[in-house]
């Protein structure tokens, strides 16, 4: 089974090496979609053996995932895994996604809200230090309260607009079969892609399951997180997509 990881990255030179090192042991190939980074993200990714597809200008998460999907199709992927470049996902959890696929799922969403991972493994109250870069380490914590509220709102919006309830609609750790890839059409460009992928799974009657993942929140990933305004823009775009689809 040809498993390809797609990592959308925008200015992630600090964490991309570590993510690539950890991911490469679990997949056949890693494709980094460099979304118009202004730093050395693409060069570092290439040096670490990843295939790099570079957007000449920043187009957003949805556009980067769409490009990653196209590249994976050209590479003849059987399964595609998407994960974030900021280190908030643990690639050692990829086998549980593959297990769900082997059990018949078309789309698998990694949820930070199901399962009971102990804090030592980065559960909700977790606090381990296992993501390092450039000789330094990142402080790891569980999901902060305001993030949980934002996540709940994201889940509700996905339910109201698209009629699908998932416990972690905004999760970036996902898996898709080649069949799912051939059916899903990504129209959005930015953060709204997370809800769109779930909506597309429903529209195409794909089997969607959730698997538990660790909630790794580093100071780094929190600093790169989304603001309230971005959340509001995402909501407007999702409503627009719902109306015009």
């Amino acid at each position, binding site marked *: 089974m040809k498993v390809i990881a797609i990592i959308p990255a925008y200015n992630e030179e600090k964490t991309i090496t570590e993510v690539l090192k950890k991911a490469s042991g679990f997949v056949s190939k890693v494709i980094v*979609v460099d979304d118009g980074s202004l730093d050395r993200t693409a060069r570092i990714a290439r040096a670490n053996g990843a295939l790099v597809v570079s957007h*000449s200008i920043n187009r957003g998460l949805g556009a980067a995932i769409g490009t990653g999907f196209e590249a994976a199709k*050209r590479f003849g992927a059987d399964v595609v895994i998407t994960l974030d470049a900021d280190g908030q996902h643990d690639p050692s959890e990829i086998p549980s996604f593959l297990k769900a696929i082997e059990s018949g799922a078309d789309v698998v969403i990694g949820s930070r809200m199901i399962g009971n991972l102990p804090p030592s493994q980065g559960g909700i109250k977790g606090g381990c230090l296992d993501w390092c870069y450039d000789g330094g380490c990142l402080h790891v914590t569980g999901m902060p309260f305001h993030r949980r509220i934002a996540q709940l709102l994201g889940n509700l919006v996905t339910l109201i607009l698209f009629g699908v309830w998932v416990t972690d609609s905004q999760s970036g750790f996902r898996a898709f079969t080649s069949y799912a890839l051939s059916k899903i059409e990504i129209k959005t460009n930015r953060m709204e892609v997370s809800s769109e992928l779930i909506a597309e799974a429903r529209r195409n009657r794909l089997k969607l399951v959730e698997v538990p993942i660790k909630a790794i929140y580093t100071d780094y990933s929190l600093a790169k997180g989304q603001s309230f305004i971005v959340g509001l823009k995402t909501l407007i775009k999702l409503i627009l997509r719902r109306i015009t689809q």
Partner: protein
Amino acid sequence: MTLIQILIIAFAIFALTRAVRQFKKGSFSIAWLIFWILFWACAAVVAFLPQTTDVVARLVGVGRGADMIVYLSLIALFYLVFRIYVKIEQVEGEITRLVRGRALDDAQDEFTKK
């Protein structure tokens, strides 16, 4: 006639001439030309004889003609904003397709090597 009436009528005439010129240049169809002629003609009539709007306002159940124009303008503006928003999204999608195509073409050599 008040100054505001003169200004609105003058602007309507100016807009009409612009619309005719754009039509002659082939910028839009005859249907749009008719729409703009009717629109600015109505604007000029309403500016010249404001009481005409009261008749229409009473018909649709709004107290004053001026209020009705404000309501209609708001609806038209909201619709226009929506249309522009949809158009921008379409343009964004087209830009993404261009950027994606170029990125994948550029990466093709790397693909074949690996």
